[in-house]
Every structure is written in structure tokens, then in C-alpha cells.
């Protein structure tokens, strides 16, 4: 695979790397150019898809002997990020950027052709990996709002950088945003910020179910910054508490999304049906476990997958869903953490099992208990 980026596309690509660095430590790079990442707790997943139109030149080159869809390069985000760290200097100096994958020596080669004839070449090691795929059926979400990135940026601006989680609430009359502290509302200790917007402020407003969802803000900031730099509108798809929320942007040449787990409120146990449920106005959430840091101790690892797991292969970029039922206890005691992301497969032959994990990837064959259903 070989592609060339020019001018402002290099900066946009760099911004995508920055956004992905907020999610996880590793990045999956696929030809047709897709960049994906997931956090260690599997409660946040992001992807950036660049169509061939984004590039000055795009070719799959000498990969013809190998099915291009089967190459999945896993890289350390840290190494990529150091190449794109200073976007201002990239904008100033880089005229062209060439990215190619060399399977013969397991290297991703990134070349920057800069001013004054200077060339910078980076050969980054990658690991071959299974696909990281987890997509979200946004069209099944009852609630949708769409707004310019600027509006969302202005909304989250009011929260301090250290704010871990925020709660987005939606009713037919208002959209609200407030910060969330685990451990309840201790009015004496924390500063609370809350704002509401009228549905008219949004480019698109659809409410299917009144809900309040709490999710990690830090992981979202990268995408908002990306969207703002390209002046793209952001769509938010979500449902009841406990179901994932998806923030996405798209334009003619690219598509990106961040899918985040939301806190389950204590009223529901296990998977909820995709029917309308009214969340109580002040959900008493189970002790928060959403941020990756606190999920570390969680045994939310793919090896706990039970036999009833299906993988539905996708064509590049189109949503697929696969319910991954983790072997976690569905009936969690109040004190234990839940990162609960519930998916529904397009084909409804899954089992109504315990909480599912958002994204799945594996390097080992034996983790797949069933072959993919195509």
C-alpha cells in the first residue's frame, strides 16, 4: 500500500492521530486507509476512515499477492504521535507526506518531504494483527442530535480539563450537559456545572427516548478538536443509559467516530431491550468504572467470551455489529464496576446475555470460538 498526502491533508491526518491517542495506546492501520484504536478497558473505540479521495495518490501497489483486506498493522500510537506532534511545524514545513506499508520487513514507512529539499523518513515497526472491528448501529439509536463542532466544543469548554465524565440528558424540550462525579452528589466538595440548550440550537434533533447518559469526556475531546479544525458537524447517536453513544463526523473524503460506553443506571440489570425505557431523572449509577484507569482491574478480556459469539464480517467501514457477551456476571453487586456497552446485532439471533464488550480484537486464533459469518 502506498499513498501520498499533500498540504492540509497532512495536518488533518496528524489531528486524527492526536484524537486517537486520547483513546488507547495502540493503533490499527488498515489499507484503504483506516485508523482505529480502542482503550484497554474496551469502553472507548474510535476509527478514522479516509477514502482514496483524501489522498493525492493512492495505490495498493505490490500488495496484490496478498489480500489487501487481510493486512492489519498494529502500531504504538506513541511512535506515530511523535512524528505528528507539532502540527504547526508540520503545516509550515511539510509539503508532502507518503505512507506505505512494507510487509517484507514489517515496517510502515512514513516520509515527509519538507521545505528546502529536506526529507524525513521514518520506518516504524508494526505487528500483524487481527482486525479491530466494532461498529455501532447508529441508525438504530432512538436519539440523534447534530451540531457544528463549534457548538459542542463550546459546550464542553465549560468543563475543566480534568473532568472525567459528563452527563448528557435529553428530553423533548431541552438538551442538558452537566458534570458527573462518582460517589454521589457531595454538594460541599465539588463544583457543579450544568447547561441546557434548546433543541433549536441543533442542526438536527430527534428524540426517541428521554435519557441521561454518562460517558468519559476525555476520550471525546480529541474528536471534537479534529472536527473543529475541519469545521465538520458532529452527530451524536445514543439511547438509554447503559447503551453506547457514538459521536461521528463525516465529509466527502473521510469519516470518523468515537464510540463510548455509558454508565448503566442501577435500575436495569443486564442487557436492556432496545425498547424505549424511561430513565429516572436522577439515575443512581453504579459505582463508576467507565474511565479506562479504573477498569484496569476489571476482567473484561476477550478470553472470557462464551460460546455464543458471532462475528459478522463487514466491508470496509460499514457498520457491523457483533455482540460479544463477556462472561461477566450480569447481576453485579452495587459495589463492583460495570462498563456496560450493549449492542444489538443486525441479525437478531444472538442471545440475551450478560453485558457485552464494546470492541474486540485478538491476536490469537483460539479466541474465536465461531468462524465469522459472512
Amino acid at each position, binding site marked *: 500500500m502506498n499513498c501520498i498526502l499533500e498540504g492540509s491533508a497532512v495536518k488533518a491526518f496528524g489531528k486524527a492521530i492526536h484524537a486517537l491517542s486520547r483513546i488507547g495506546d495502540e493503533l490499527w492501520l488498515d489499507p484503504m486507509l483506516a485508523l482505529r484504536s480502542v482503550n484497554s478497558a474496551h469502553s472507548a473505540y474510535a476509527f478514522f476512515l479516509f477514502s482514496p479521495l483524501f489522498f493525492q495518490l493512492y495505490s495498493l501497489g505490490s500488495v496484490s499477492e496478498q489480500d489487501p483486506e487481510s493486512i492489519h498493522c498494529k502500531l504504538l500510537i506513541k511512535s506515530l504521535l511523535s512524528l505528528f506532534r507539532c502540527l504547526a511545524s508540520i503545516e509550515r514545513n511539510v509539503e508532502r507526506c507518503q505512507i506505505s506499508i512494507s510487509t517484507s520487513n514489517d*515496517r510502515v514507512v512514513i516520509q515527509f518531504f519538507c521545505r528546502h529539499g*529536506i526529507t524525513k523518513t521514518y520506518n516504524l515497526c508494526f505487528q500483524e494483527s487481527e482486525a479491530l472491528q466494532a461498529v455501532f448501529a447508529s441508525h438504530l439509536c432512538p436519539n440523534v442530535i447534530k451540531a457544528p463542532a463549534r457548538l459542542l466544543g463550546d459546550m464542553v469548554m465549560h468543563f475543566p480539563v480534568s473532568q472525567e465524565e459528563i452527563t448528557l440528558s435529553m428530553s423533548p424540550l431541552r438538551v442538558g450537559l452537566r458534570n458527573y462525579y462518582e460517589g454521589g452528589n457531595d454538594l460541599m466538595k465539588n463544583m457543579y456545572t450544568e447547561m441546557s440548550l434548546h433543541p433549536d440550537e441543533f442542526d438536527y434533533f430527534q428524540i426517541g427516548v428521554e435519557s441521561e447518559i454518562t460517558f468519559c469526556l476525555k476520550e471525546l475531546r480529541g474528536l471534537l478538536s479534529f472536527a473543529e479544525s475541519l469545521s465538520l458537524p458532529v452527530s451524536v447517536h445514543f439511547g438509554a443509559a447503559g447503551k453506547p453513544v457514538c459521536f461521528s463526523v463525516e465529509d466527502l473524503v473521510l469519516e470518523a467516530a468515537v464510540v463510548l460506553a455509558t454508565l448503566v443506571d442501577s435500575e436495569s440489570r443486564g442487557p436492556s431491550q432496545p425498547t424505549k425505557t424511561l430513565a429516572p431523572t436522577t439515575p443512581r449509577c453504579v459505582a463508576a468504572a467507565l474511565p479506562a484507569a479504573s477498569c484496569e482491574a476489571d476482567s473484561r478480556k476477550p478470553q472470557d467470551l462464551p460460546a455464543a459469539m458471532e462475528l459478522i464480517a463487514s466491508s470496509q467501514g460499514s457498520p457491523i455489529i457483533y455482540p460479544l457477551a463477556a462472561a461477566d456476571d450480569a447481576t453485579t453487586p452495587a459495589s463492583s464496576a460495570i462498563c456496560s456497552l450493549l449492542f444489538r446485532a443486525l441479525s437478531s439471533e444472538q442471545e440475551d446475555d450478560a453485558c457485552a464488550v464494546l470492541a474486540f480484537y485478538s491476536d490469537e486464533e483460539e479466541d474465536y470460538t465461531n468462524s465469522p459469518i459472512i
Partner: protein
Amino acid sequence: MPLSTQSQADDEQYVLVASLDNARNLSNLLKAITFKDHAIFSATPNGLKVTVEESKCLQANAFIQAEIFQEFTIREDSVGFQVNLTVLLDCLSIFGGSTVPGVSTALRMCYRGYGYPLTLFLEEGGVVTVCKINTQEPEEPVDFEFCSTNVTNKVILQSESLKEAFSELDMTSEVLQITMSPSQPYFRLSTFGNSGNAHYDYPKDSDMMELFRCDKTQTNRYKMSLLKPSTKALALSCKVSVRTDSRGFLSLQYLVRNDDGQICFVEYFCCPDEEVEEE
């Protein structure tokens, strides 16, 4: 404002007297070579040379010609001593190092000879401070035997382009490899770090390249830890010359313009880590 609190008679006891209206013209240059505590000062009628060495593999020299000083009097052919460079720099900035325009610290540096301390008279805004720094027996600086006749490859680059490269260098790489060649890639800096390797290529016709004279393809590696201090000199400089000799020894010469626009030089010599056969 020249400092003249000493009478003529006193001056005769000093073997070296050097005065600067702006002490920063000395201190900025010394900061570019401060990677060890001790420095060897060597003065001749041509000027002052300050040398700092690291384990006999790296040597940095700062040259301030006699013309840069407002007063430079030396009563012997050569005067040498060793002082703690960190202490000297602290003294030179004893007035706080403010950058208010028009206000500068004036310096009068005096040395009476072997066994005597180095005396600094510093003045700013009418306030005078006298510092006496103990001197030591000067060590003999290593002679890297780097002479122009042995130079195989030489390039002169504008510092701006190298500054960015050095600031981005992969520090997980133990070595910095420098390739100089009459053919592609002409001038290349390479690192071999944890996540992969990186190459910075400067073509010979780049407008950043002021001089390109490479006769033979040479690739040499130098320990990153040894070269790291040179980035301070690079930051101050406007031009840098990179030369290697037949043994692979590296000479980096930095052209520094001081506050008054006068030219001073800083030079780094470095031993190669190992010989790499050009493939």
C-alpha cells in the same frame, strides 16, 4: 559603561585582564558548553578559549577573540587555569540576568597567576560585586588531532534546519548516525530507536546547504548521549559546519552571533562509536 575601579598600579599584578561591557556576551557562550562542572580556561594574546571535556570522547571549546573584549591584556604568552564553570556562570548572572534593554552587567575578569583565584568585578546600575573563584591546576585538554588536511567530508548548513531535526531526534536511539556522501543521500542523520528508525536527509542543493564538499562516502555513529549537549550550541548558532576526518572523528563548529552582533565560535569534537562499513 566600562568598569574601572582599579588603579593602573593594581593592574600590573594581573597576568590577565579581560573586560566586557555586557557579561552576557561571555555567559551565553559558556552556557552552550556547560555539560560538566569544570572548564579549562586558556588565554593567549589572540583571545580566550574555554574547554569542557567528557570522558576523553567529547570536547567542547568556546572561542572569544581578543577583539570581542573591550579590554584584553595578557602579560604572558599563555595563561591557563581551571574553574568550576557552574559557579562562574552563577557569578556572571549575579544581578539576576534581567533582560531590560539598555541594562547589562559589565564584567572585569582578572587573574593574578598560578595559585591565585579568578577575580570577577561585576557592575550593574552602579552596584559592584566582587567574586573570587578558586582555580585549579588546568588539565591538559585532549588533542583530538583533528586537522584540516585530514578532513574527508565537510558541509556547512544553516542552523535553522538542523535545530528542528535535533529537537525531533528519537532519544530512545543510543546512537546518531551521520552519513556524508558525494551521492545520494548526501547528508543524512539517522536514529535507531525502540519503535523503528528515522532518517533526515539534506540534499546537496538544498538552500539550507551553504557548502557541500564530500569526497568519499562515510557513515559514522556517535553516542547520542555525547552529542546531546551540542544542541545548546546549535540553538545559539546561525550556521554550523559538520566535518569528519579519515578516522571518523566528528567536528561540529557553530557560528554564534553575540548580543552585539560579533562573531564567536563554539566547537565540538566527538569520537565515533564504531566504524560502519558503507553498504
